[in-house]
Structures are given as structure tokens and as C-alpha cells.
């Protein structure tokens, strides 16, 4: 015989202000099987929980119903309290009379009636609850980090320092990501490569980190604790272990000046066999087969091979597939810059001296194509006047994206500052709409660019840029003075907006994590679970989640790492027991359930007799993957699947309670 306790929470005035809680309690007491009914100001408080525990003990309750806030808030709290008194935690049901009643209704009488209904439904449900055990999944304590930029490197180092083995996979020939392309960093002006290279080297030398550069994750299956991954290690045509990075090969390559350097954003050329930049990690070249003469001309050219001392160039190397099992993943794939050639009015691509912010970084950088001397791409002259245009592509729902790219205000202020430092007597003009400089030291930095370094800021956008007698004429507006302005510049730098790395949507689909309409990975909760993806065991870091600066990227990398170390601190991962359950006796093996399952949680299972003879094939639920969504329940023709805690008889009883 059921012995049910009902607890009605006031939630201060949150519920009690709109719902007559005493009435709800009185109605509860009338229901057969309810042996105790109580209302209390805050059920989640310590005294509230204590009285709940006492009543469970005193009345020897077999199930409890809380008429309170959403189960998202406190289901766990009450389950734990019940478990402490020896009750199976799944004998706790919540009637949500806050989010679904008091917060959304005004009429007290009708709200109370609805609260009573919801409470009654849960009483009928709890009477039919069966004990459920949580599922425990063993954990493979190894992590995969996808993307070797600053956030990925940070995550990898933190995990590795926690004693866990890490695979760091990077698509490009070297780790370092976007940060290694930058010159000096705001607001402290420390040199990016000076602070980045030690981290890259540390990642490469760390005993717990296995580095896969020039590699891509090709396939992922499995679930938290047990992800099976395939990494494609693209053929480098160089045997890594033998290479000394001496450079004889790329010096010998006849293909110099033929291929645009990706690392220098098309401002210089590279050879077919190349390292993207001198501090590359690993310092092992990659042979770009799409342009190499050896491959194009049937093996005739082998100048690099001839020049190589340790003879580590191997034209016959093939792509390699590496299979690994990991327990957790960090997705930190970073960002790209928007293509600004859609702004015909700005002439990017048409005028050589209209460049992007990242290109300007390369012009500033000592390791860049001009060795840090600012020179115009058109004629190599040092510009005296530069116009910087902010929000190119950002905050532009018509041609670009509606969001703010967050870093452009700061990097533009930095560009104007560095330009003033490098070219004395020069002048920069910055067109902006709003200046966003909200982190520590940022506002002071921007003010310094104006007050000490003399940059002129104009509040407005630019409408057109055109060339006239060797100058770029910039037509803009200054809305503060209410003027249309024209500036004759030697160079124009567009603060190009950021978008997710090309292909990150495909990766998200492979990982089974959600992403927004721009392709940025979405967090499990934007405020409270910012490091978690929508899928258990997969964590997020860096710009792949949205625009952010270096400190934020580092923090997010560390956050993902700490989540993984926390997860790996136990040997098993607990999954809620409310998952699908197959009645093997009635299952007819049609496998419609398998077709509708979004999580690949259903497989075929063979049932054999003692002699090993096959009796039948049935659907089998993988508890590590099942989320208890119930899609299979609807698809099952023979009514052989139920989700534990949501059995058919329970649902019908709830509906009947409503009808009475």
C-alpha cells in the first residue's frame, strides 16, 4: 500500500503570492494513499529538507511529491535528501507549480486549481514508480583536444599536468593557431610569439601530450568515457623522426614565389615544401602535393630529396589513419576572418593597399613578410596616413553578421598605437561606431591610443574607398560633428569580423554537439555550464564558441581541462537511470527504434540458447548513449520499449488524475 507524502513549497512569495498553497495542501491530504501533506516557506532550505527527511522516516513513506519549482532547479536536491533516508531517489516526483503556474498566471483561484491538478497527477505517478538504478559507465582516462591554438594548447597542458594523457590534433602543419600570427597583444603590448612559443614547445615536449599536426579527426563514435576516434594523419612526405628542420629542402625547392603563404595571409610566398613560420612546432616541413613539381611532373623533380642530409623525404608516404579511444573531448577549432570582398564599396581585393587586420598584424610582426617594417603591399613604401575601419562584416546583418566580433575595437587601437610607435610623424584615423573596451586595462589602452599616440577617432562608418592619384580616398562620416569626411590615406586597414573556422559545423555534426546559426558551438548552459557542450563528455574552448580575446580563450581552455580532470577523478561516470528499456520477450526486431534514435544508442542483440543456437534478434539500448528522449517508444510497433520512470501506466494514471 502506497504511503505518499506531499510537500507544497511557497518559494517565499514566488508561489504563495499566486497559488493558495494551503488549499493545495488540503486537497493533497484528501487523496487516497497520501499519508502526509505539508506546506512550507522554502522546501529547498535546510529546515525544509530536514522536515522532509523526518516525515519520510516517521511515516515510513514509499514516495514523495514536491509541488515546487522546476525539476531543473531542485530535483537533485530532493532526490539526495530522499536517498539519505533510504528511499530510491526515483520515488521523488516534482509538480512544477512555479514556472508552470505562479510565474505565468495571475488569477489566484484558477492558478490554484491548476496547481492542485499538477500535484494530483504527480501523486498518481509516484504511486506507480518502480525503483531505478543509475547507470555507471567506465571511463577511459585519455582526452582528445581538437585544435592547437591557444585555447586548445592551454587545455592540453592543463589536462596533461593533471596526469592525464592527451591527444592534441591540429589541422595545420604547426600548432599555434591564430595567436602565433599576431604581433604584439593588447593591452600590455607583450609580443605574441614570445609568450606563445614557450607554450607550443611545452606542449610538444610534454610526456603526457601526443601531438598530431597536419592531421584531422575523421570519425567519432561512442559516448562519454568511451569515444572511439579516427585521426587522419595527412601524408607529410617527410619522416618526422629523422627531420632536423635544417631547411635545406625548402631552400632547394624550385617552387619559391609561386604559392601564397597562408600564414602571412597572402602577403608573401612560400615554397612547395615549407614550414609555415620559423618557430613552427614541430619544426618539420610539409610537402604541399597540390603544387609540388614532383607530383605534377611525374617524379622528375626531387631537388628537396637531393638536398636533404638525413634523407628523410619520402615521396611515397601515404595518409595514415590512427584509431584511439578517449573518455573526453575538447573542441577548440578557433575562427576564420570573414571574406570582405563582398564589400565592393571598400575595394578589398581590388586595391592592394586595402588590407585586413590580420594582414596588418603580419606587416607589424618581426617574423612577417616585411620583417616588422610597415610597408604598403602595392609599392613597398611606408605609409604616413592609415585609415582604420572598424566593424567590417560585424554588426552588419545585411552583408555580414549581426554580432559584435569583440576583439576589433581593441586590436584596432593597438594597430593605431603600434603604427604611431613605428612610423614617427605618421597619422592614423579610426572610424568606429561604438568602442567596446570592457576588460581590465582596455579602456585606458584605447584612451592612450588617442591621447598619447594621437590617433584621431571618428564616430561613423565608411561608405566608399577609391583610388585617386596613388592615394586611397576614404569617404566616411563623423556623426558627432554631423559631417561627411574625406581622408586621403596611404593604406586602409579593415577590422574584419570573425566567423567560426571553416568546417566547424561538419565537425559539430560528427561530434553530435549543437551549434548556432553562425556555426559557433553552443554551450550546455550559456551562463552556468559555459565549458560544456550539449553532449556529455565533450567540452568547448576558445573562439569556436564565439568571439573572445586571448585571456578569455586561455580561461576557457583551462575551464574545459578542469571539467575533464574532475570527470576523470572518478573511475566511472553516472548516467541517470531514466533511459529506454526493451522488453526482449515482445520485441519483433523491426528496428524502427534504431532508425529514429538520434543518439545511435540502439544496436542489434542476438539471443542464443545454451548450445549457442540463435533464438532471436532484439533491440538493445546502450546506456551510455541513451538520453531517455522517448523517440523509440513512439516508434515501436509492438509496444516493447518504455522509458524507465515514464512507463505507459504512469502516463495514463496522470491523465486520469486530470480527468477526475
Amino acid at each position, binding site marked *: 500500500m502506497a504511503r505518499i507524502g506531499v510537500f507544497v513549497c511557497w518559494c517565499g512569495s514566488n508561489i504563495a503570492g499566486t497559488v493558495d498553497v494551503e488549499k493545495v495542501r488540503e486537497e493533497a491530504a484528501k487523496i487516497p494513499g497520501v499519508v502526509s501533506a505539508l506546506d512550507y516557506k522554502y522546501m529547498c532550505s535546510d529546515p525544509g529538507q530536514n522536515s522532509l527527511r523526518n516525515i519520510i522516516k516517521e511515516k515510513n513513506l514509499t514516495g514523495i511529491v514536491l509541488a515546487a519549482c522546476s525539476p531543473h532547479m531542485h530535483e537533485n536536491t530532493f532526490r539526495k535528501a530522499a536517498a539519505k533516508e533510504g528511499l530510491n531517489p526515483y520515488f521523488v516526483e516534482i509538480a512544477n507549480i512555479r514556472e508552470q503556474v505562479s510565474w505565468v498566471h495571475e488569477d489566484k483561484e484558477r492558478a490554484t486549481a491548476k496547481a492542485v491538478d499538477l500535484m494530483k497527477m504527480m501523486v498518481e505517478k509516484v504511486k506507480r514508480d518502480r525503483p531505478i538504478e543509475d547507470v555507471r559507465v567506465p571511463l577511459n582516462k585519455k582526452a582528445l583536444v581538437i585544435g592547437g591554438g591557444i585555447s586548445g594548447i592551454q587545455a592540453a597542458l592543463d589536462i596533461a599536468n593533471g596526469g592525464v594523457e592527451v591527444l592534441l590534433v591540429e589541422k595545420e602543419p604547426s600548432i599555434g593557431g591564430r595567436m602565433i600570427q599576431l604581433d604584439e597583444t593588447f593591452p600590455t603590448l607583450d609580443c605574441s610569439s614570445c609568450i606563445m612559443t614557450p607554450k607550443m614547445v611545452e606542449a610538444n615536449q610534454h610526456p603526457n601530450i601526443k601531438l598530431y599536426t597536419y592531421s584531422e579527426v575523421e570519425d567519432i563514435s561512442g559516448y562519454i568515457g568511451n569515444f572511439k576516434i579516427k585521426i587522419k594523419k595527412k601524408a607529410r612526405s617527410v619522416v618526422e623522426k629523422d627531420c632536423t628542420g635544417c631547411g635545406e629542402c625548402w631552400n632547394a625547392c624550385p617552387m619559391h614565389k609561386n604559392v601564397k603563404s597562408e600564414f602571412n595571409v597572402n602577403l608573401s610566398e612560400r615554397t612547395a615544401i615549407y614550414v609555415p613560420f620559423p618557430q613552427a612546432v614541430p619544426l618539420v616541413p610539409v610537402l604541399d602535393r597540390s603544387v609540388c613539381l614532383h607530383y605534377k611532373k611525374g617524379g622528375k623533380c626531387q631537388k628537396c630529396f637531393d638536398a636533404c642530409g638525413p634523407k628523410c623525404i619520402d615521396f611515397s608516404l601515404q595518409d595514415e589513419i590512427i584509431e584511439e579511444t578517449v573518455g573526453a573531448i575538447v573542441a577548440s577549432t578557433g575562427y576564420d576572418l570573414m571574406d570582405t570582398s563582398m564589400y*565592393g564599396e571598400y575595394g578589398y581585393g581590388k586595391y592592394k593597399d586595402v588590407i585586413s587586420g590580420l594582414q596588418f598584424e603580419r606587416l607589424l610582426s618581426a617574423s612577417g613578410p616585411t620583417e616588422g617594417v610597415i610597408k604598403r603591399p602595392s609599392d613597398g613604401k611606408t605609409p604616413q596616413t592609415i585609415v582604420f575601419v572598424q566593424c567590417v562584416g560585424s554588426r552588419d546583418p545585411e552583408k555580414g553578421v549581426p554580432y559584435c566580433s569583440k576583439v576589433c575595437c581593441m586590436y584596432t587601437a593597438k594597430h593605431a598605437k603600434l603604427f604611431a610607435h613605428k612610423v614617427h610623424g605618421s597619422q592614423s584615423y579610426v572610424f568606429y561606431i561604438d568602442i567596446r573596451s570592457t576588460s581590465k586595462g582596455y579602456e585606458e589602452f584605447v584612451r592612450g591610443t588617442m591621447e598619447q599616440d594621437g590617433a584621431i577617432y571618428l564616430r561613423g562608418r565608411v561608405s566608399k574607398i577609391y583610388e585617386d592619384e596613388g592615394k586611397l580616398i576614404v569617404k566616411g562620416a563623423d556623426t558627432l560633428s554631423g559631417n561627411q569626411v574625406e581622408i586621403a590615406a596611404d593604406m586602409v586597414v579593415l577590422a574584419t569580423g570573425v566567423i567560426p573556422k571553416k568546417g566547424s559545423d561538419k565537425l559539430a555534426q560528427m561530434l553530435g554537439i549543437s551549434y548556432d546559426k553562425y556555426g559557433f558551438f553552443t554551450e550546455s548552459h550559456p551562463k552556468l555550464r559555459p565549458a560544456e557542450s550539449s553532449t556529455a563528455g565533450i567540452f568547448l574552448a576558445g573562439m569556436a564558441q564565439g568571439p573572445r580575446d586571448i585571456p578569455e580563450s586561455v580561461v576557457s581552455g583551462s575551464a574545459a581541462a578542469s571539467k575533464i580532470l574532475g570527470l576523470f577523478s572518478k573511475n566511472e561516470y553516472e548516467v541517470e537511470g531514466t533511459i529506454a528499456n526493451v522488453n526482449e520477450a515482445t520485441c519483433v526486431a523491426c528496428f524502427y527504434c534504431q532508425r529514429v534514435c538520434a543518439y545511435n544508442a540502439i544496436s542489434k542483440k542476438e539471443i542464443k540458447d545454451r548450445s549457442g543456437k540463435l533464438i532471436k534478434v532484439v533491440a538493445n539500448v546502450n546506456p551510455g548513449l541513451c538520453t531517455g528522449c522517448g523517440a523509440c517508444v513512439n516508434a515501436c510497433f509492438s509496444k516493447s520499449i518504455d522509458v524507465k520512470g515514464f512507463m505507459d501506466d504512469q502516463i495514463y494514471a496522470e491523465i486520469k488524475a486530470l480527468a477526475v
Partner: protein
Amino acid sequence: MKLAYYPGCSLKGTSFEYEVSLLKILEVLNMEIKEIPDWNCCGASAAHSINHNLSVALPARNLAIAEKDGYESVLAPCAACSNRLKNADYELKNDDILKKKITDSLEMPYNAEMSINNMLEFLIGVVGKDKIKSMVKKPLSGIKVASYYGCLLVRPPKVMQFDDPENPVTMDELVALTGAEPVDYSFKTECCGAINSLSKPDVVMALTGNILYDIKKNGADLVVVACPLCHSNLDVRQREIERKYDEKLGLPVLFITELLGLSFGIDPKDLAIDGHMVAADRVLKKIKELTNQQ
């Protein structure tokens, strides 16, 4: 396909050269267009400036007549007319309340299934590059031509659905077909001030001057346009602009139909090139010399 022709007021008046040359080249191309019977003025800028409903109703009458007569496609050589026809068509397609108001007033239905072509769309899309190329008898090689598009052909892009609004190329492609050399410059789609030509001549001369001097600087022998309003400003006002800025221009302004006609070997007189205010004699002489050499 039956092709309707909406000449508009300018082609029957100040820009008669445009119509003469258009009809002439179509004759050579062996193509037939039919004037929309009893067409009326599209209302031009005046209507949309002070009376939105009129700006839809006036063009709609012409479109409805053409539709009733079974035409699927209208050619409006005047950029302003094609702009207003397309605008009206766009609004009627997207605003059912307005559509009811307008068709009730016209007492004619309009299904808005007409394809409305400006001159360049017509030449590229309906006539076709191959056909034009095959008619070029006297290639104008060595002649440098700047194509001026102005506003009305390309803007607003959402309604015009024609070429790149910042850097259009269609007219340059036609120029290239004639054998002439297209000249690139920065002000292809800058406004010449068209509608305020009579009411704000100073403003118009400033805007048109900018365009003409930029074209001159880029070494063009002549300018081609596909808009009578652009033509008026660039051609009729050119002498004044020269006087105002005290710098010679001497840039003949031809309609694209005239340039095509010249490359087809049609006599300039039959194209009414002598109807322009800026004499094209020097360029015509150059063309004659060049073609004689070929």
C-alpha cells in the same frame, strides 16, 4: 516571345537619339518589339517623391495593359522608367493591400508575372551576347570606353536584381563585344544628381563633374550610358561644367545602343549621334580611321 516596349517620355523627347539608335540596331538584329498601346508616364521621381500611391499606380497601368495584351516581357530602355516599373511590380508582388487598392483604381487586374528588362538586361539576356557578337562588323578596337551606370539600373539591388551594385560589369561586357576597350574607374555607380537637374543645377554639375573628370583621368575616349537622365546631365551639362571648373572635358556621351550600332557598321547619322550636345566627331573620325585600317 512577344516583347513589349515601354519607351517612356524622354525617348520621345530630349533623348530621341536613344530610341532612334535602339530601333535601328533591333532592325539589324532582326528583332521586333511592340510599343505598349497608349502608355502613360511612369511618374518618374516626382511621383515617388511626394505621392507613394501614384508612384505605383502610374507604372502599374502600363504593366497591366501589357499583361492584358499577352506580353510576358517588357523592355524599358530608360533606366528611370525600368526602375519605376520594377519598383511598382515589386510592391504589387509584396503588398496585397496596396495591390487591391491599385487594381481597383485601374479597374484592371495585374498578376505581376511580367519580366521587366532594362536596356542592358535586354541586350544580354534577351538578344544574347553571341548574336550581338556575330553582328559586329567593324570592331572598335583601340577606342577606350567608360561605362557609366548611375543609380537607377542597380539600386536598390533588392528590387533591381541586376548586376553588382558596387561594381557592375554588364555594360563593360557589351563594350568589350564591340571590340572597344572598357575603362575602369571609381565612379561607375555614383549619382549624377539626375532628378534635380532642373531644380538644383549647381548640385548636379558638382556631382556630374566629379564623374566626368574621373572618367577623363582614366583615359576614356568616350562614355556610354543606358539612361536618358544620365545622358542629359553628362552630355547637355558638359559645356557648363567645363566652364565652371575651367577644365576641358570634350567627352562624347553615347547611348550603349549607339556604340553597338557603330560596331555593327551602321552610319552614325542613322544612329542620331549628331543629336548630342557634345560633338562626337573626333571619336567618329578615329573610329573611321581604325576601321579603315582593319
